[in-house]
């Protein structure tokens, strides 16, 4: 029987290794897997590379993970959302490396990893500081920058509903990066507000098919992200 449910948050994050690349879904405070991030903090893996659109705000969840000093590098499009105080302190002190990636390129690079592609050419960033050192190629008269896949060892995802096969639906725009990150990581871990019987989700409205999911843990009352 295919059953991706695990009993506890500790089971959900078990085995994440030092040095792992961890994709963390969410945009602003929407879709952040707060409980999984805190479980990762408790789990203790260090020397992490975190891929996330923002750098956390307040003192909880992503900011709390950064504050542990266990994140070596952040790959991110916009680390300066209001309240990103923890990141700003670390950055000013030179205690964290930042790879700044245009948001669409960040998302597309993860998709390329999930899709088994070797890379792609994007018009985004041509002629800018963020394309420095990258291959530029003219295709049909337009310049494009070459970008490589960005694969995760782990993805942490927040979903609204899941079944035991790992099929997922999300809530509103909390969907954001989750479907792409789910396909881009070797180990995709999901916290779901509700776990439903197999067959309860309409096959045509499943957003993330279970094939992209490895573990599901039930978190019925998820905390809001970005708390002080």
């Amino acid at each position: 029987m295919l059953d991706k449910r695990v009993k506890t948050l500790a089971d959900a994050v078990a085995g994440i290794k030092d040095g792992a690349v961890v994709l963390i879904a969410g945009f602003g405070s929407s879709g952040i897997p707060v409980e999984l991030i805190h479980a990762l903090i408790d789990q203790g893996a260090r020397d992490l590379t975190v891929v996330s659109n923002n750098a956390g705000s307040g003192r909880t969840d992503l900011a709390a993970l950064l504050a542990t000093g266990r994140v070596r590098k952040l790959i991110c499009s916009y680390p300066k959302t209001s309240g990103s105080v923890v990141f700003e302190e670390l950055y000013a002190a030179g205690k964290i490396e930042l790879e700044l990636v245009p948001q669409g390129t960040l998302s597309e690079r993860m998709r390329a990893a999930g899709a088994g592609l070797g890379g792609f050419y994007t018009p985004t960033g041509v002629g800018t500081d963020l394309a420095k050192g990258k291959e530029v190629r003219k295709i049909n008269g337009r310049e494009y920058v070459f970008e490589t896949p960005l694969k995760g060892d782990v993805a942490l995802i927040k979903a609204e509903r899941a079944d035991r096969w790992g099929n997922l639906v999300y809530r509103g725009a909390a969907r954001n990066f989750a479907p792409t990150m789910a396909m881009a990581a070797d180990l995709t871990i999901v916290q779901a507000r509700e776990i439903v019987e197999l067959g309860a989700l309409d096959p045509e409205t499943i957003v993330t098919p279970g094939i992209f999911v490895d573990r599901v843990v039930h978190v019925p009352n998820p905390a809001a992200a970005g708390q002080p």
Partner: protein
Amino acid sequence: MTTALSRTQIARRAAQDIPDGAYVNLGIGLPTLVANFVPKDREVIYHSENGILGMGPAPAPGTEDPDLINASKQYVTLLPGASIFHHTDAFVMMRGGHLDLALLGAFEVSRAGDLANWATLDDKTPPGVGGAMDLAAGAKAVWVLMDHTTKDGRPRIVEHCTYPLTARGVVKRIYTSLAVIDVTPDGLFVREMAPGLSFDDLQARTGAPLRLANDWRPIAID
């Protein structure tokens, strides 16, 4: 005596030019004000990079949904006909030329339509690019809304940008506190000027050569 447009007036002016049925992305800051002033008989579909098409006005106090926010992380609502999709598809729309218009703020715009709107020259704070480059590279047309000069009077419309570039040659039109200017292969054409402003005055506050369109007119301000 020249009356420069307020930020609200710049937004109001730009709003008049958004066509009925257009797909539009409004950048952070001044551009977000535009939605308030689009004529009511036009149906404009607003896009947000986090996966929303068909955003409506801000929710009534007490009805905010933390999972319905825009790129500025402000609460929004969904209009009938709205759709939700994931981030990668949101950027397919942006990069792939599916948006009719991106209205963006800027630090500088060059004579050739180069856009600088993502990074200051301040090294102390971390840089952040968000979706600015994707939007600038991919929208069918980019319009910039900004004050005509910096607070200390330096031009923002320049021969070459001094701030880090967002994209080259993408800006089609500039709405400033003093003028409405088209960026064309033949140069910067002034379509409208603030009431009372002379072309020479405008040129003096601009860092690149301007040409006055034959059919120029004063900006109509309510």
